């Protein structure tokens, strides 16, 4: 069965005065129907760019190479009207700050009506009914249909975004840091709503975040990004239980949770993307770097049910450990 979403050798570079920023470099990545995949990494790793790239909402000075296939069709080759249809109807999106997506001068009713009627030939009444249903599904009472965005709290605005993303019954939801600006309790509520709706409608989810906790709770698979590339990718349970890539290990250890006994961090700083370190971009900070690391970028190879880009786990490299 074909994948719902697939990127092939996807690279996204920004041409800036200071040089070319290689935000996303040669990413091969796939998402199946109904799957929840987490895309994690710290700031500057390229995860947001990748999400935006899939939706073709990048700024003008971005250069995109490679293919982005959605339901088998290359999004880059679609004419703008087709692309708009895909973006609204087949892919729903949720951003970190709902206020940037909501027009402060339009009521929620206007937002929904406009959105629905852009993509479907329906009467205003039917659009309203669809909207109310979507809002009810996320817990927004119908009496607030005529309110303006600023009259809602942060959590409610995020729910409205989710309702807007789902009202046209898409197949895939892309959520870019959807709960980062929310508190823990509201975050839990939002994620629960998202999960319920996902199960009910069989949606796929691409969750872009730096919060490993919510990935552990929501996702089936996870892809870890560093300096524009995927360094490890596979089932959530496996990767969290036994991370292979040293960056993944460092990242997981640095999360502070209720049972943390000791603080742990990764030395150094994330690399600039204009002149990244040679070879494996992580090698300057890697406690286990060895001879082949600075020479060439390690390929993302399959290993025990997942993929990892690290010479330690390349069987054909001398000195690389094999996972036992």
């Amino acid at each position, binding site marked *: 069965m074909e994948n719902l979403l697939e990127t092939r050798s996807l690279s996204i570079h920004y041409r800036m005065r200071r040089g070319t920023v290689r935000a996303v470099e040669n990413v091969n990545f796939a998402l199946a129907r109904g799957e929840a995949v987490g895309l994690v990494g*710290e*700031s500057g790793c390229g995860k947001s760019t990748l999400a935006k790239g899939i939706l073709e909402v990048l700024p003008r000075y971005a250069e995109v190479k490679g293919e982005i296939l959605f339901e088998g069709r290359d999004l880059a080759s679609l004419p703008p009207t087709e692309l708009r249809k895909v973006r609204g109807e087949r892919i729903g999106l949720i951003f970190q700050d709902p206020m940037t997506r909501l027009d402060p001068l339009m009521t929620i009713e206007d937002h929904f009506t406009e959105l629905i009627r852009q993509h479907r030939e329906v009467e205003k009444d039917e659009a309203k009914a669809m909207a*109310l*249903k979507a*809002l*009810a599904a996320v*817990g*927004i*009472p*119908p*009496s607030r249909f005529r309110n303006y965005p600023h009259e809602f*709290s*942060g*959590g*409610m605005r995020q729910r409205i975004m989710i309702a807007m993303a789902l009202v046209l019954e898409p197949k895939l939801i892309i959520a870019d840091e959807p709960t980062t600006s929310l*508190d*823990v*309790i*509201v*975050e*839990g*509520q939002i*994620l*629960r709503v998202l999960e319920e709706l996902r199960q009910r409608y069989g949606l796929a989810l691409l969750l872009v975040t*730096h*919060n*490993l*906790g*919510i*990935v*552990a*709770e929501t996702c089936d698979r996870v892809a870890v990004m560093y300096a524009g590339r995927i360094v490890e990718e596979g089932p*959530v*349970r496996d990767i*969290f*239980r036994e991370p292979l890539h040293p960056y993944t290990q*460092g*990242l*997981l250890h*640095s*999360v*502070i*949770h*209720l049972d*943390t006994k000791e*603080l*742990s*961090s*990764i030395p150094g*700083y*994330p690399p600039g993307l204009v002149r990244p370190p040679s070879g494996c971009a992580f090698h300057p900070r890697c406690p286990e770097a060895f001879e082949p690391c600075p020479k060439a970028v390690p390929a993302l190879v399959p290993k025990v049910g997942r993929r990892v880009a690290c010479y330690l786990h390349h069987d054909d490299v001398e000195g690389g450990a094999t996972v036992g």
Partner: protein
Amino acid sequence: MDNIVSIEGLKVYFAVQKNFLSRLLPGGPKYVRAVDGVSLDIRRGEIYGLVGESGSGKTTLGRAILRLVKPSEGKIVFEGSDISHLKEREVRPLRRRMQIVFQDPHAALNPAMTVGAAIAHPLMIHNQATKEQDAKPNVLRMMDEVGLNPAEDFYHKLPSELSGGQLQRVVIARAMILNPSFIVADEPVSMLDMSVRARILELLLDLKRRHNLTYLFITHDLATAKFLCNRIGIMYLGKIMEEGQASEVYADPKHPYTKALLGAIPIPDPERRTAKSLPRGEIPDAINPPANCCFHPRCPAAIEGCGWEPRDVLNYLEERRTRLVTGGLDKDVRVLGELKRARIDGQTVRFRASGDGPAELLEYLRGIVAEAHGPLFDAVEGISLEDDGVSLRLKPWTDIKEVISDRRRVLCILFQST
């Protein structure tokens, strides 16, 4: 026990900026009750964790202690002197002893000042140096201490050229250069990457040990607070809900809000995916907080006497309509009418009957109350017929009082012996 900071009954209310017309209307000006009666002590040498969600008032409390905002009521004692009523220029010399580290290191630094100038600035403000050149050796030493090596290289850089972690080190250096005794750390790592957080926290701990500092650590992250703090206070809508030794509070949380917060933390371990019981709704705005215990509308352990008021009934009815969207909504709107038009009088709410007459309204309401469960409905005293509609009365509540026992303070009716 030497308390470096002592607060009693502190209230910080902000007047809401409304337009001219609304100021003339009855009801008077409205206030955001950011801090609504907080008393606490911070002992010298400890790390006190102030934990709460956004809107809890924790940030305002931190700023009030430093007199960056004016207290509306109450007493603040710092190192033995009452600073609650001091004028701004009297507070300024005190700023040498108490400092703040902000959440957003980018925004906290003047984009027009170099790193060296920024760190030297406090010295010049407090007349410990007249020219930046004189202060330079001190500044370089401080930069070394916070880990900005090599210091000479960083000295001339602008904030726009540094990463988040480095910027936060600059902010810390700037706060430390005058050798304060008390630092308010307002979410110092929440905007930093995960792999960098630990280093900044370690720096803070290191500085504390070396300079005998006391911290007020403000955060929404319970996990970090547990690791770092000696005592914690959980804040909600301007009040302290629970306070005690950190290890004890986490091992045995008493307040339902504390339990909810602990339960809501996402754990980075997929094997431990449990269904969470989360309180409903969100933290309400602080202009008109819920009556009595401000957490009661969301509390999973609420009982009859927590503070149920007519507002809660109307909120319930409104939310109920969400469920009726699939069927029954029209009838509900017809019989109950616009919920906004219900009139509240003390513990009574009056609904105006629609064309179908008060009898139908009475039966409808009785039906709703009968089939619903929860402490709100236990608090319903009676529903009766009026001339033009129906009135619903709620029982009076038990006034909430703080319970102190065994190094723990809890603000919860459940622990009050009636």
